[in-house]
């Protein structure tokens, strides 16, 4: 790499020498014992650190990557990883909306047997900074692992992205459709693969009759809050739409939003511009579809009742507590919004199988996850339709 490019890079973990050596790196065995041990130590460090440990998303990551959790994930693969080895070097372009995503991304690449160059966004989060500091410290005691991880930050500089793209074996891009498009213009080596994680749309389905019977409405509201407001509805997994089954919908809705409002008023920090943003989103929807009715007395929780499910609903999304809702006569109606962009269906009061059947029966192009309300943020080795371990390793046939 040219010196002037190098000068633009700021290393959070690792350094220029490691980066240089990585070009010739080879993959290793998935779930290698030393990788599992290393992640377990990282987990302990994170949990025990005062700066990092106070963040719930750090805790979530730390619990996810501890030994017992990783070994459980490994079990799911049975003997299928016997002839597999990591592809080599993964180049990650981490998202800016979810602070800890860069670590999940790095960890899955490691578990699949790859070294990683991780580019983090220019937005600094306190918990990311703390986690990088701990990781760097830990790598000091693990020279073997130190050669596998570089985390860096650089300003918008296509030449750098071009360089990393040209030397990697896989490129993992988290980002908006536009930035993915920009990055994909830069060539990978002939054998290189892309795993693009693009802008997605998610929704929630609630069985109204079951909800009315349910005794833990407050808990459900908390869980829904964590799925949505906790990431300011910026995560791809956050529902933008709530679909109710028709019977009992009116009363279920009333109670549900009332419960949610209580959580929101207790926990959410409203920003003054958000009311304008939400009103604009509702107007935008109205310009294109004449079936909406907005309910938005307190701007920290706005909803628009819609008379039909439209494929382009995701174009009218707005972060920070803005929901479309629809009462469905038949569950199969949701197929309309199970487009290629649809990622997660979260649910209450159904069997997972019921929803899976709807998706299959209607031959929907999208839907990558179906999880209960409260679980949308649970990261897993299967994501957006990819299996990280299989995708980031190669099989010797």
């Amino acid at each position, binding site marked *: 790499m040219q010196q002037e490019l190098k000068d633009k890079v700021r290393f959070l973990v690792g350094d220029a020498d490691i980066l240089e050596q990585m070009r010739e790196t080879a993959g290793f065995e998935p779930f290698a014992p030393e990788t599992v041990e290393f992640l377990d130590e990282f987990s302990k460090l994170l949990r025990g650190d005062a700066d990092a440990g106070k963040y719930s998303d750090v805790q979530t990551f730390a619990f996810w990557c501890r030994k017992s959790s990783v070994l459980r994930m490994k079990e799911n693969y049975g003997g299928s990883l016997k002839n597999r080895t990591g592809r080599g070097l993964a180049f990650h372009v981490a998202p800016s909306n979810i602070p800890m995503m860069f670590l999940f991304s790095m960890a899955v690449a490691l578990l699949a047997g790859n070294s990683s160059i991780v580019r983090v966004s220019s937005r600094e989060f306190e918990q990311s900074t703390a986690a990088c500091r701990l990781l760097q410290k830990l790598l000091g005691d693990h020279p073997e692992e130190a050669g596998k991880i570089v985390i860096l930050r650089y300003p918008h500089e296509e030449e750098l992205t071009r360089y990393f793209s040209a030397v990697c074996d896989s490129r993992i891009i988290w980002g908006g459709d536009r930035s993915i498009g920009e990055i994909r213009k830069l060539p990978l080596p002939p054998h290189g693969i892309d795993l693009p994680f693009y802008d997605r749309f998610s929704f929630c389905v609630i069985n109204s009759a079951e909800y009315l019977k349910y005794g833990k409405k407050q808990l459900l509201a908390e869980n829904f809050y964590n799925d949505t407001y906790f990431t300011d509805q*910026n995560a791809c997994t956050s529902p933008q739409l709530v679909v109710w089954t028709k019977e009992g919908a009116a009363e279920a809705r009333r109670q549900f939003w009332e419960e949610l409002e209580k959580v929101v008023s207790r926990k959410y920090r409203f920003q003054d511009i958000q009311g304008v943003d939400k009103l604009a989103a509702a*107007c935008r929807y109205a310009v294109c579809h004449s079936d909406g009715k907005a309910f938005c007395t307190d701007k920290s929780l706005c909803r628009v009742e819609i008379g039909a499910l439209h494929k382009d609903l995701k174009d009218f999304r707005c972060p920070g507590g803005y929901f479309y809702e629809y009462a469905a006569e038949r569950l199969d109606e949701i197929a309309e919004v199970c487009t290629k962009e649809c990622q997660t269906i979260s649910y209450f009061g159904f069997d997972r199988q019921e929803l899976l059947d709807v998706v299959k029966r209607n031959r929907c192009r999208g839907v990558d996850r179906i999880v209960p309300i409260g679980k949308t*943020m649970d990261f897993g080795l299967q994501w957006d339709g990819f299996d990280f371990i299989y995708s980031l390793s190669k099989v010797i046939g």
Partner: protein
Amino acid sequence: MEELYRMAPFGLGHQEKEEKLLPEYKKLTEHHYRNCEKYKNILDCIGWDPGCRTLEGIPFIPVRLFKEYELYSVPEEAIVKTVASSGTTGQVSSKIFLDKSTSAGQQRALTAIVGDFIGRSRMPMLILDCPDVVKNRSMFSTRGAGILGFSTFGTKRAYALKNDMALDYETLESFLENYSGQRFLMFGFTFIIWKHFLLELEKSGKHYDLSNGVMVHGGGWKKLKSEAVSKEEFRRRFREACGLEDIHENYGMAEQTGSIFVECGCGHLHASIYSEVIVRDPKTFRPCRIGEKGILQVMSLLPHSYPGHSLLTEDEGAVLGEDDCLCGRKGKYFEIIGRLANAELRGCSDTYAAGIKG
């Protein structure tokens, strides 16, 4: 409306204004509802009460919609002019569609309002901008439209800046030589005036006597704020550099050209009979009390060809009083505090202990 143009622009007190103008705003709302389908869809979605009893009940839409959609309420063939708001570099600009009567109304209201502050007789005018901004059609924007609109107040017009935005000392000196003995008008955009006129004057080290001038400026403090220049500082520096005291800020937008809000000698922006300002609580959109800060909603009776008569801005301000400003003008007077910050993109950075998954 004809009746309105014959009235004093700041002559209506609260009660009278409400009684006279509420029916007008309702009529206008209904006109747009019937003639602009997109506006109709919007009102059907966000709701409004046609039986409302105060101006506060008139529905409002975010001003940014004009950046995204072409909104008009007259047949296309009636549109005589389309104005694009300048927008900061890189931003999308609004498109405003004017028919003959709207365009004429804007000029009449502007004349009445500005006349109330600077007098009705025309005077020599020094435009604090470059000639290209009006001549060059591709640049024709709020800046050009604003200058053209104000040009009717001037007789002998001169441009104080060259096309490369350098101060044109020759023009300035000959203008002052000819007219500094009488009252003269200066007009321009706040940031341009600051950067290309005042700072240059100060640097030049020469003293020009502008004490007979009256200056009207506007276009936002956003850029000046980033240079940490306050309103007071702006005034003080002009006073010290060239003896200019008679300065009036104006607050307006391309979406409501004509019915601008102008600052009186007490430093207050005034709503005229052609306009109204309502400050709303950001979280509930309920009208704020006097002195309470919130989001500005601006109303104007002029927009007939496009549904821009009641708009929610992204500016923060506070109503300071009504009907009792020491300058004697009736109606509400207010201040602008600044622009609402864009929503910061927040990740899951809360520190509460979430349910930890094993």
